[in-house]
């Protein structure tokens, strides 16, 4: 194989991982706030929660669209195989995302806000749960024929280990959503979400431990990778760093810090993500189809890289500008007027 035949699929694997990571962090707190809105004690507080997302939810969701397009272009085989295998959860996720998006706009104009509050919260929960199911199913492996076409059952995603991943991801989203709200709100509402953050940190930790312990039993390939001597230092270091971050997170919550809980949570997401990435690489359809088998042509990947690669820093720039423009506590009066 030529250098580019090896290099370009790896580059696109990294770009896809970046898009997915950005999505999981950004829409993660977005969906987390949506789930938390189900517990808001008053309409006023719920309005604040939703206002904290007003200027950003759409851009956050766009990282998913971008990830989909990039996967389609760079690894068409994986796009077809994975989405077809996950038919059920993909449509449930879409349903959840549609419900929460329209609830956002309809609630604004509705006199009776309750049905839309419920739609928003349940849509967020459904989207998060479906994403967890998708993640869990892909990690535990999709049976394919030699050409990489899915040959498993349409119910492959319906099992215990995917459910554990889904529940953990929901907890993770609630955690990052809570720490985001600590950043964006004050007073009683902020205190409420310090408590939800603590709770969610504990349950996320539990879920992560459960996934780590059970994953060697779920998939042979994952087991082989975990106990591969070449990766041993990485898989020893990872949990140690994770524990350090969790400790720091609890400390910063106890100290009443506003920014650090969010930062530590983001770092925890990055860390878990790095772990998952190293576990599956170079598979794009675990367990057996690699990025080299599923990739589009080198010319296609080079062409996409010249266009999309240049745009990545630009996209990051104006997204960051958006966050800077709306920085600080939620201020409904200022943004409405």
């Amino acid at each position: 194989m030529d250098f580019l035949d090896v290099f370009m699929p790896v580059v696109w694997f990294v770009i896809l991982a970046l898009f997915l990571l950005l999505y999981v962090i950004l829409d993660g707190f977005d969906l987390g706030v949506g789930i938390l809105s189900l517990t808001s004690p008053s309409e006023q507080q719920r309005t604040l929660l939703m206002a904290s997302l007003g200027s950003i939810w759409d851009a956050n969701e766009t990282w998913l669209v971008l990830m989909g397009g990039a996967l389609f272009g760079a690894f068409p085989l994986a796009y077809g195989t994975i989405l077809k295998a996950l038919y059920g959860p993909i449509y449930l996720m879409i349903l959840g995302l549609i419900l929460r998006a329209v609830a956002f706009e309809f609630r604004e104009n509705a006199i009776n806000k309750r049905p839309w509050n419920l739609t928003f919260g349940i849509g967020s929960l459904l989207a998060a749960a479906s994403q967890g199911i998708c993640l869990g199913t892909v990690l535990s492996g999709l049976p394919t024929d030699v050409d990489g076409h899915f040959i498993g059952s349409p119910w492959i995603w319906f099992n215990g280990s995917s459910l554990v991943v889904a529940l953990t991801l929901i907890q993770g989203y609630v955690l990052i959503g809570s720490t985001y709200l600590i950043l964006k709100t004050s007073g009683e509402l902020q205190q409420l979400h310090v408590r939800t953050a603590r709770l969610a940190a504990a349950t996320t930790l539990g879920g992560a431990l459960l996934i780590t312990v059970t994953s060697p039993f779920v998939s042979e390939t994952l087991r082989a990778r975990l106990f591969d001597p070449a990766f041993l230092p990485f898989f020893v270091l990872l949990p140690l760093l994770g524990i350090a971050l969790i400790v720091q997170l609890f400390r910063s919550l106890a100290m009443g810090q506003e920014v650090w809980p969010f930062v530590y949570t983001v770092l925890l997401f990055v860390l878990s993500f790095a772990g998952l990435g190293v576990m599956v690489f170079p598979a794009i359809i675990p367990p057996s189809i690699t990025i080299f088998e599923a990739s589009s042509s080198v010319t296609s990947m080079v062409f996409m890289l010249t266009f999309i690669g240049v745009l990545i820093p630009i996209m990051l720039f104006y997204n960051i500008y958006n966050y800077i423009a709306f920085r600080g506590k939620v201020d409904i009066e200022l943004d409405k007027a």
Partner: protein
Amino acid sequence: MDWLADTLVLSRLQFALTAIFHMLWPVLSTGLAIFLVILEALWLRTQNPLYYRQARFWARLYVLNFGIGVASGLPMEFQFGTNWAPLSEFVGDFFGAVLGFEGAMAFMLEAGFLGIMLFGWNRVPPVIHFLSTVMVAFGANLSVFWILSANSWLQTPAGGSFSQGHFHVENYFTAINNPFMLRSVLHMSLATVETSMLVVAAISAWSLLAGKAEAFFSFSFRLALVVLLVVAPLQVLAGHESGLQVAEHQPTKLAAMEALWENHAAGEAPPWTVIAAPDENGGRNRWAVGLPGGLSWILEGRPRLSQDVRGLNSWPADQRPRMVGLIFYAFRLMAGIGIAVTALMGLTVLLWWRTGLTPAFFRRQAWLSWCWILAAPAGYLAIESGWIVRCVGRQPWTVYGQLRTSEAASQLPAQEVLLSLSGFTVLYATLLLFALVFGARIIRQGPDLTLEPPTGPVRGPLPLPTD
């Protein structure tokens, strides 16, 4: 009810349903965005609060519409993987890349600046706010470009070769700039602006008829009319050009659009069929009303054909589209609405010149208001009809001449697709209903005429200079 157990039929129905529903929303997201740019430019230039209030009022409709557009766009992208996995594999090299570009260039731009456009009036300096509105409009219109380029490529694949079940791109620019691209992008962009202006004009006409906020809606009606003065005639021209490119590149679609069953040789002067009752099984029209000698005038602008025109019967049944009646009438509906709207625009401009189009005139001439109120749904109908002609007329191919729709579909259990199709049907019917209810509420409430423009310094030190 065999089709209930036919995955291919169900997947096609689902794509049709989700595409028809999705298409309702990007119309305003792209067309009305341009209107908002014009309004904000006027506001920045003149500092007249009227323009500021205009921008804020129309933005309320814009945002209601926008959320549904984003959400209903998701199944469009993901369906290529779930229901059309063989297609994804076949054309991923090009088609996937283009969807990726659309995400990175268009959607993200639109989404990244939308927050500032809607909520940032007191957060950023006026110039930055204006630039954000421009970026939203630019992003939305870029996505028209990419989607139409991708769809045009399905109509006239170019820029590479097909082998071993894959399309291999040799030249990306040729593929993007395929034969259908330019005229299709133009036709669709004009359609979104035209229909958006029809929506503005309809809401303005209704409010004037009801005697609401007369100065406000007189202005928006006239501004929409001025834009239509340019756009509507151009669209008739662009539509005609699009028809000619079909004649050149997709003879089966042309034959279905015109319900032509028999061949016509060069030198003949066949009629142009106005209405007909196509009989697909018999391979003929049961009856037809035509303009004598009309076809050569429409296709070539001359009294006799200079080239052969093929009829549907000259292709084997599995090489030409079915549902000829649908294609035939959808085309007439679209073209008829385009021409009727242009005539209505011309008449109203004439009345403006003669009478000044005062609010009192609107109340006296209720018929005029009603024509404009009906023109808005007609605009949407024309767009949907156009897509039906374009995509049903392309059948039996998904990639024209290269990949059959039957080969492009995923092998899935039919119940699974039936379930998602039923879900979309119920969900979308409900969403449409509520969107209309809330849209009507915004229109009835009307603009806030006491809204004061932002004054004084924007909040806090900004990361960019505040000129």
